[in-house]
């Protein structure tokens, strides 16, 4: 039992209130006599009910709301609003970085130009740690491409559970994990590879070792990108170009979603 082929689009039009009066009447009359179309129309209605459950729709986080609202205080002009939106909570923020960020934002709508580090030196420390991991033979403590090996290895070594995700199908095979030391605390480092390149993904609980905020930058030829997700801070570092590192971040963040 299915809808009449020539009526199908009309059923959608009726559901959406997009038919004119004449067609609405004709379509409703047809529904009364055609069980196939009637059943199809009911299916469409129950789909709508499911989709319009309020929880389906995503809402902006309070942090995002506050940031956008702050940028639109009555005294703002588009330029000062840009400064607010690009610098985020304004602290230790160099003029150079501000103008670079604003210029870059104006150029293209790439999302991730929000350059700020609330903990000065964190970026340096991450880069140093990345370099050290490559120089010393201390890239990996537990070598495995299986997350069921890497994830439990962290148990008892760090006081949080870093998500270990396999991304081989996205072109970033898991290489292993190790412990590292950033800003005075032990953090998890999850190691991925991309061709001959190494990606160190540092993970620690949000708010303890300083927050990098959602930011990305290039430093000493290394790309860095940081974000917060599910109460953890993530910083990915590699000598890959920014585009590929963003791709890594997007794949990881999507699958790490709770």
């Amino acid at each position, binding site marked *: 039992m299915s809808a009449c082929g020539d009526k199908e689009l009309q059923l959608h039009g009726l559901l*959406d209130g997009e038919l004119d009066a004449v067609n609405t009447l004709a379509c409703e009359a047809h529904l009364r006599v055609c069980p196939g179309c009637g059943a199809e129309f009911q299916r469409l209605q129950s789909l709508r009910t499911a989709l319009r459950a309020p929880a389906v729709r995503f809402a902006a986080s309070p942090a995002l709301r506050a940031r956008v609202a702050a940028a639109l205080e009555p005294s703002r002009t588009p330029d000062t*609003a840009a400064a607010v939106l690009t610098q985020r909570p304004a602290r230790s923020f160099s003029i150079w970085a501000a103008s670079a960020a604003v210029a870059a934002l104006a150029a293209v709508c790439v999302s991730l130009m929000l350059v700020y580090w609330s903990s000065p030196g964190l970026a340096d420390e991450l880069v140093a740690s990345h370099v050290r991991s490559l120089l010393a033979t201390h890239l990996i403590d537990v070598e495995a491409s299986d997350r069921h090996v890497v994830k439990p290895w962290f148990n008892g070594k760090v006081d949080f559970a870093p998500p270990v995700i396999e991304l081989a199908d996205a072109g970033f095979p898991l290489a292993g994990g190790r412990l590292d030391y950033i800003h005075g605390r032990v953090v998890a480092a999850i190691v991925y590879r991309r061709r001959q390149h190494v990606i160190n993904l540092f993970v620690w609980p949000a708010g303890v070792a300083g927050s990098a905020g959602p930011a990305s930058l290039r430093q000493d030829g290394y790309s860095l990108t940081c974000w917060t997700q599910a109460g953890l801070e993530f910083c990915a570092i590699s000598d890959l170009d920014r585009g590929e590192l963003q791709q890594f971040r997007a794949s990881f963040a999507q699958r790490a979603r709770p």
Partner: protein
Amino acid sequence: MGRQATHGTATAHAGEFKRLVLPHLDAAYNLARFLSRDPVAADDIVQEAFLRAFRAFDSYRGGDSKSWLLAIVRNCSFSWAKASRVGVGGSAPDPDELADPLQETPESSLVRGSEIEQLRAMIEKLPDPFRETLILRELEELSYKQIAEITGAPVGTVMSRLARARQMLSDKLEPRR
């Protein structure tokens, strides 16, 4: 209108923007989130979209502010997708995957909790044009005409995309006998 060249111009400008455009923040986020399928990117896309909208507010000539903003969000989402997709993987889902977006793997059964999550996952698996049309109609409750304006597609195309999107979703929800 009401934005005469007085020294209060900037203030009026920001105030009016706040009154007309800011209420659509959730709509902007919802669209960005479903288009990018990435919570972190969605934040960045929305910020960029508001910035662009604020800068372009002078050229806004009245009319439907929600459609106006969402068109900007859509552009920003596509710029983001272009910038973040360098070859491998990318956002275009494998058509085979569409056949069963909820194939059971240990990960997926852990990840998807509630029915809402399942529904969101199914929507995210829809190919771009169908996904955006469905979001704009069912979640943002825009008219065919508004959707046509935002996506730049003719109203007829909007209708057929919507019908197809609903078909794909309801086949997953309750397979036809």
